[in-house]
């Protein structure tokens, strides 16, 4: 390539191009050119020609996982969601860029300085906090500013759409009127006992209903599965753990356990030489050896004014605060033991451990066993998973794989696409079972990663298509359905007859329940279905009530709506309603913009 450039560089054109490249590198840096030649390989989607790269998706996925909001086993769903969000964001960014939205460096500075995340206790912006927070979220200051910039641009757009919405006085009035409306009505519930004879169902009616509603009696497509699972936890449970390993695990933990310590400190600059300080502490050691109390001696000898009167007590310490020398001494002691003389930047110390926050070996036995066993089976687990991958791919069946790996071969009952139980209900399992490789071609599935500790391979042992269940099988269900439906029809018929009698001026042959000036919200013992219908009946004209009916399970209610009134004004409630309406409209304005952009965009998923 270099040779051919040299050959061609004799021409004027090539020289100018090289000149351009030199200038471009000088002005924009080599990155620009490198970026120009390497783009396109890592794209997962293109939005109106603009790339979304795999790295972008990964970065966001990692951020979400690190923030602890998403369990790692939902990574795949998360990845999809992240990609969707990135597409949305990309559409909005293009829209705001085209629209000339822009934020200056000063505006960004103002925002950054005002964010509480970057402020110290005094509410002042802290450069250190800024860097640390960014680093832990995986940003550089530059990339954070860029992210903030596009975010603010989107906010400007969204706020403009939301804040510009309004509620008109007439709209507020109307909404309020409807909301506080009250209705006065009477109702009476008819049930099976009101019928002269219980409903009869003939065999022909059953058949007819069964045929008309065949869709309700379908059985979905189903498979029977064979599967094997490699389970790290189960392996750990079965692993043999010897007592020695448990003991050393316990000691490792004890070495690092939090402990309460006291110290006697003697300083040595200025008035006292180092040797004098040492001599002073040796004196303490002698008196300790003679059986004197550490706390009393601390009060007498220690130069640490803040602890001397507390018996030298430093409180509970964990590693990482007191410097290596001090900690090495403190964490090698048992309760009641006193260290040799230790030197730190502050002076010379004698340290005593007064309490140890460490349960006994027996108390921790089970926990330690799990810990030791889990780390012991780690390698074996990985090897088995690798063998599972290799062998299940090569084999024509699952039995040989199970035998070779010493795994139990499980068999399931019939399961449908959405109907697995226990392990079969976990994400990804039924997808694999109904994938074309497994279902149609009869291969073993790929290794399914259920979570960190479990891998599964399955194959289809048997398959049956969706079918309508035989009449004989579902006869009871059909019977129940037909009975309910016929009873309702009969009750409705009865209701009509009763209403017709009332209209003819007959006295009611039953007792009404009264509901006066009921609002939509007010709590009462009126069945919800009755109230709902009462508020949906046309307004009565004149004195004649409007009759309606509501279905309550197997029963039917007759309703007589007498009056519709405007209820009492509740300013607070109506204010909230208006706010709700406005918020929903504002959300819709933003949502609809996105839908609009999506419908017009060219979105390519690669």
């Amino acid at each position: 390539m270099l040779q051919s450039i040299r050959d061609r560089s004799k021409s004027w054109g090539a020289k100018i191009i090289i000149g351009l490249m030199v200038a471009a590198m000088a002005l924009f840096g080599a990155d620009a050119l490198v970026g120009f030649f390497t783009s396109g390989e890592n794209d997962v989607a293109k939005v109106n020609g603009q790339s979304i790269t795999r790295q972008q998706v990964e970065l966001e996925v990692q951020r979400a996982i690190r923030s602890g909001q998403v369990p790692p086993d939902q990574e795949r769903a998360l990845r999809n969601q992240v990609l969707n969000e990135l597409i949305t964001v990309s559409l909005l960014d293009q829209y705001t860029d085209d629209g000339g939205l822009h934020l200056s460096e000063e505006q960004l500075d103002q925002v950054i300085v005002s964010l509480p995340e970057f402020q110290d206790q005094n509410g002042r912006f802290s450069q250190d906090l800024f860097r640390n927070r960014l680093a832990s979220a995986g940003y550089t200051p530059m990339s954070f500013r860029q992210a903030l910039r596009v975010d603010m641009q989107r906010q400007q757009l969204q706020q403009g759409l939301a804040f510009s919405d309004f509620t008109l006085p007439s709209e507020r009035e109307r909404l309020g009127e409807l909301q506080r409306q009250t209705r006065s009505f009477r109702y009476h519930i008819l049930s099976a006992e009101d019928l002269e004879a219980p409903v009869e169902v003939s065999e022909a009616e059953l058949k007819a209903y069964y045929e008309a509603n065949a869709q309700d009696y379908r059985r979905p497509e189903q498979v029977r599965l064979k599967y094997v699972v490699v389970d790290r936890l189960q392996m750990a449970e079965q692993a043999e753990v010897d007592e020695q390993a448990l003991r050393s695990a316990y000691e490792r933990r004890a070495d690092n356990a939090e402990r309460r310590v006291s110290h006697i400190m003697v300083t040595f600059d200025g008035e006292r030489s180092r040797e004098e300080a040492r001599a002073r502490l040796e004196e303490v050691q002698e008196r300790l050896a003679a059986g004197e109390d550490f706390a009393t001696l601390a009060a007498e000898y220690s130069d640490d004014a803040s602890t001397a009167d507390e018996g030298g007590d430093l409180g509970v310490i964990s590693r990482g605060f007191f410097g290596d020398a001090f900690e090495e001494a403190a964490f090698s002691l048992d309760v009641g033991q006193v260290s040799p003389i230790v030197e730190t930047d502050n002076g010379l110390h004698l340290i005593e451990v007064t309490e140890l926050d460490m349960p006994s070996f027996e108390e921790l036995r089970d926990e330690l066993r799990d810990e030791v066993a889990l780390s012991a089976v780690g390698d074996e687990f990985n090897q088995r998973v690798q063998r599972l991958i290799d062998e299940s791919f090569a084999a024509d069946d699952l039995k040989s794989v199970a035998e070779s790996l010493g795994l139990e071969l499980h068999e399931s009952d019939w399961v449908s696409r959405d109907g697995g139980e226990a392990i079969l209900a976990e994400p990804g399992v039924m997808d694999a079972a109904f994938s074309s490789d497994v279902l149609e071609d009869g291969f073993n599935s790929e290794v399914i990663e259920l979570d960190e500790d479990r891998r599964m391979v399955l194959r289809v042992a048997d398959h049956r298509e969706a079918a309508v269940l035989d009449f004989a099988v579902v006869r009871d269900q059909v019977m129940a359905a037909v009975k309910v439906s016929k009873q309702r029809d009969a009750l409705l018929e009865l209701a009509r007859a009763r209403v017709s009698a009332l209209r003819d001026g007959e006295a009611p042959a039953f007792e009404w329940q009264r509901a006066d000036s009921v609002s939509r919200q007010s709590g009462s013992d009126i069945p919800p279905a009755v109230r709902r219908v009462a508020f949906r009946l046309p307004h009565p004209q004149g004195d004649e009530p409007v009759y309606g009916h509501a279905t309550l399970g197997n029963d039917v209610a007759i309703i007589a709506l007498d009056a519709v009134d405007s209820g009492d004004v509740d300013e607070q409630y109506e204010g909230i309603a208006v706010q709700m309406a406005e918020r929903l409209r504002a959300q819709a304005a933003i949502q609809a913009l996105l839908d609009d952009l999506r419908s017009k965009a060219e979105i390519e998923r690669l």
Partner: protein
Amino acid sequence: MAELRTEEEQLEAIKRWWKENGMSLIAGVVIAAAGVLGWNAWKDYQANQAEAASMRYQQLLNIVSQNELEADELAQAQELIGAIIDDHGKTLYADLAGLVEARLAVADNDLTSAKTALGDVIKSTSREYIRSLARLRLARLQLATGDPEAALATLDENIASSLAAQRADVLGDVYLALDRDEDARKSYQQAMTLAEELGQPLYGIQLKLDNLGTQEATL
């Protein structure tokens, strides 16, 4: 380069090469530099313009995000809107400022000015979606000022299909004002279906529909 024997010869070779190629190389660098500088200057100018618009707009948002506006704040907001629309006419800032202007007029109980503001946005914007949104809001104002016929005409214009649920809701209100109850019912029902499909819930639509009464439940 080992075959170039002495320093003088090397120097001579370099001079010769420069004589042959120097001019074109310089030309390339100069053209590129001029291009880049010009481009940067143009970008800078645009960025300055955009920044000015952005500052004004952000100030406007800060003012209108409050619940109640004092008279002087209202005046300041209106001044900012005027400046954004005059100086940055083609930008999205201008469109959004126009929409905000209508809302401020409503808050000031000046529905006529609100209609004018939205009418201006509809005329001036190059963005279909913004135009749709402005039409929807204009129709509501027309209805509230006693002109349902005009509202009907406005809703008949092109409105983005992603706003169809809200359009059907307003259309129902318009039909109701025109005493076309059956059309109103159909519109509200359509609005409910669309709201479900588009995932944009509408507040109060069930209330409106219920109040029209349904024959299904009668006896």
